[in-house]
């Protein structure tokens, strides 16, 4: 690259890297092709075992690579594995190549680690599923795609994973496709994601060509990082190219990570089996947008306006989703809106430029949200697929292990120290406060609501009397070890993951941020907003921490009063503002309905209109041309018949009359004919001779 003004990148190569995504792919291929046969012959365990072994082996490889990476000096922490050339056309060079750097390492550890646990859990959860092979194949395929996403060394590889996870998400949301609602939810997820992908691709195109105009067209991340400063002065549509590119990319992120306005698919995605919700729709796939922005931090640093947009959207989403979460009764829906809300936090983090904080929250969130989802899965499994919290209650006596792990994860998400959620969330809120106190205020409010609705969930589910019917209660039991052990491990993670990034203010050294430093190196030098800047007001930071903890406590206490002690009637609260507010929130602000009318019905209407146009106008012209031709020939025929032929007809009728008489000559008698012939020939001869 001629434009490589930056420091020389020292990279290492390793052929081991490719096996990290490849192993799950092999597992998927085997299960897709012969999985049903394996399941029939050797039982479901064989299928699940195979599918679990693959990501587990990947996890081992990731750990090995991680240790290898750790052994290198900080600025050499990139391992490359170039597999083969993919698209080399003109100046566009994208390869099937993988890159393992501190950011990928973190993501891979989360994906393969939590992913393997969820595979184990699934073996327990899907114990009565006849098409388990398909489930595990898709799950493995998802692992492959997700690993491609985070390991890909260029934007197109990332996009391969980006769409690949969307495909698997589609397949898994609609896993029980004989329910039309599930199939519909899958389609909704895919199509909404496509809207995001649309923006993502355009962003990639614009970035590529702008760089190309400087002779540095590339889509490879490390080259982009080196040459991205070239486009600093390029303008497009009244702003900088960097802003446009990042906005486009952010559209992609909103789709994948379920942010306003494209968050609508995630709650519906809960139609899938619960392990899927845990893995894809909480821990990994939905965080892809955050990862992407962190990966492209050097570019986002050049676009402060985009940063504002991201922060605003993130804050709004966090708040907005939290409000919806307050009123839901479906246990998974509550968790889904909580996920949307937490993703909003992550976007606040990356939006204000605190990429490490955003990724940190991603990691902690992966632990406690996976734990929560798996816990809810354990409940749903025990309750025979009952998801309505109004029919639960008192489960802590029946399912103690699930209860304890669930409680730990809930405390973690509520942001109570010293559990994981506290550190990561407060890191973000602190950065946000420095950026813009208004953002902080919104996030702060959302945090309180989170604590409230999460404990509402806990109280409604595990405390009080069991409201389920007799039959269900009789069969209530703790789930099997396959399901509970992953819960325990994740709960442990929820407790301790936060210590990876204890901020300096609390006497830590923020190992996490240091680890990511090589990837985020540019952000320090970038022309954007600098939040690392010196004036650490410790008092203020402690104050904010205390405030948010206190506020969360209030939320928990309120939930306790309303749903455990029942000293405040929730229905009374719901009647505030005439119940309209509750109805509005309960119905998710009618966003789905509005989208349905505007986008789905709109495009369908347009489609019907164009189809009508095609059939009647375009084809009408064609058929019309044919008809006109026919008409002209018809008229012509009439003229011919009555005018031209009129004359002819008179002649013809004359001939007809004559013929009627003369036809009697046509006797059928050969002799008669012969006579005529002979006479005529003779006459002719006669005429010629004389």
């Amino acid at each position: 690259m001629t434009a490589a003004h930056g420091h020389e990148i020292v990279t290492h190569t390793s052929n081991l890297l490719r096996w990290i995504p490849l192993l799950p792919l092999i597992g998927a291929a085997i299960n897709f092709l012969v999985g049903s046969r394996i399941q029939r012959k050797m039982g479901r365990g064989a299928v699940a075992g195979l599918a679990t072994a693959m990501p587990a082996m990947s996890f081992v490889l990731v750990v090995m690579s991680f240790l290898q990476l750790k052994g290198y000096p900080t600025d050499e922490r990139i391992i490359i594995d170039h597999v083969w050339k993919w698209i080399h056309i003109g100046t566009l060079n994208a390869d099937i190549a993988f890159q393992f750097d501190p950011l990928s390492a973190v993501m891979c550890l989360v994906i393969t680690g939590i992913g393997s646990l969820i595979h184990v859990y699934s073996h327990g959860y899907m114990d009565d599923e006849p098409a388990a092979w398909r489930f595990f194949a898709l799950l493995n395929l998802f692992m492959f795609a997700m690993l491609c996403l985070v390991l890909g060394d260029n934007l197109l590889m990332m996009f391969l994973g980006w769409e690949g996870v969307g495909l698997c998400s589609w397949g898994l949301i609609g896993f029980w496709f004989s329910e039309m609602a599930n199939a519909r939810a899958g389609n909704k997820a895919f199509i909404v994601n496509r809207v995001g992908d649309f923006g993502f691709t355009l962003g990639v195109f614009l970035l590529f060509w702008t760089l190309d105009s400087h002779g540095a067209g590339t889509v490879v991340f490390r080259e982009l990082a080196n040459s991205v400063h070239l486009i600093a002065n390029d303008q497009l549509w009244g702003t900088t190219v960097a802003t446009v590119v990042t906005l486009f990319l952010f559209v992609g992120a909103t789709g994948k990570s379920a942010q306003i306005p494209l968050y609508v698919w995630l709650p519906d995605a809960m139609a899938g089996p619960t392990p899927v919700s845990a893995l894809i729709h909480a821990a990994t796939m939905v965080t892809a947008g955050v990862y992407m922005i962190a990966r492209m931090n050097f570019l986002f640093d050049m676009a402060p306006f985009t940063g504002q947009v991201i922060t605003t959207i993130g804050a709004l989403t966090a708040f907005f989703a939290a409000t919806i979460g307050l009123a839901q009764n479906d246990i998974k829906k509550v968790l889904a809106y909580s996920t949307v809300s937490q993703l909003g936090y992550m976007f606040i983090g990356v939006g204000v430029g605190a990429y490490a904080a955003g990724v940190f929250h991603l990691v902690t969130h992966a632990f406690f949200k996976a734990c929560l989802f798996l816990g809810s899965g354990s409940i749903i499994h025990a309750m025979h697929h009952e998801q309505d919290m109004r029919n639960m209650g008192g489960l802590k006596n029946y399912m103690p292990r699930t209860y304890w792990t669930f409680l730990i994860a809930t405390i973690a998400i509520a942001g109570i120290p010293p559990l994981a959620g506290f550190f990561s969330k407060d890191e973000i809120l602190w950065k946000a406060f420095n950026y813009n106190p208004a953002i902080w205020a919104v996030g702060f409010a959302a945090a309180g609501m989170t604590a409230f609705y999460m404990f509402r969930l806990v109280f409604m589910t595990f405390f009080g009397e069991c409201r389920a019917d007799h039959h269900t209660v009789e069969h209530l039991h703790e789930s099997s070890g396959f399901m509970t052990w992953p819960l325990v491990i994740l709960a442990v993670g929820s407790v301790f993951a936060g210590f990876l990034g204890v901020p300096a203010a609390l006497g830590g050294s923020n190992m996490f941020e240091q680890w990511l430093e090589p990837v985020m190196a540019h952000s320090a030098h970038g022309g954007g907003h600098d939040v690392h800047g010196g004036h650490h007001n410790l008092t203020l930071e402690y104050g904010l921490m205390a405030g948010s903890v206190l506020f969360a406590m209030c939320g928990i206490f309120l939930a306790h009063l309303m749903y455990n002690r029942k000293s405040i009637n929730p229905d009374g609260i719901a009647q505030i503002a005439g119940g309209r507010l509750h109805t509005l929130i309960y119905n998710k602000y009618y966003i789905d309905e509005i989208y349905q009318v505007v986008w789905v019905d709109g495009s369908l209407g347009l489609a019907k209109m164009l189809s009508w146009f095609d059939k009647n106008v375009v084809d009408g012209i064609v058929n019309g041309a044919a008809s006109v031709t026919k008409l002209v020939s018809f008229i012509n025929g009439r003229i011919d018949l009555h005018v031209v032929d009129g004359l002819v007809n008179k002649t013809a009728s004359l001939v007809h009359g004559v013929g009627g008489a003369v036809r009697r000559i046509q006797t059928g008698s050969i002799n008669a004919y012969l006579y005529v012939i002979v006479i005529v020939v003779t006459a002719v001869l006669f005429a010629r001779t004389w």
Partner: protein
Amino acid sequence: MGVGPSSMENLSLSVLTFYALAGTAVVGAAGVAFSRNIIYSALSLMVSFLGVAGLYVILGADFIAGVQVLLYVGGVLVLTLFAVMLTQGIRDVEVSNRSVGRIPAIVIVSGTAVVMYEAVSKAGWADKALAMDESSTYAVGNALLSDYILPFEVASIVLLAVLVGAVVLTRKEVVAEDESS
């Protein structure tokens, strides 16, 4: 007229031969036209054919003469006789060979004859005995296989078609008859 006098005897002999053969042909033809019995008609036709073949020989067309004998006398005539026997048997030939409308036919034919004779006489034919080869066979064969090769081949296809056609025409009826009976 055209033929230069060489020897009186020779001349008269060739003239005599011509008249004899022409007479045979004409008498045969008359027999065909006027005989009441169709068998006689057929036999007269043979006589006429033979006379014509003789005329060909005088005209130096020995090959054609051979073909005439072989094909007409040997082929067509036998075929005709077969047909006659197949259709009527010999008993009622009398009835089957009756003629109709002789008077108008005679009128018309004689009219035609007059007109044609007039045409034949009036036309200024190039009339000279041209030197021809001893045997026409070689020349005819040559002509057939060089200048007339295409018609020759077409003719062979026509004959093939005739062969097939005749078989089909006669055979089909037999089947139909079998079915009907």
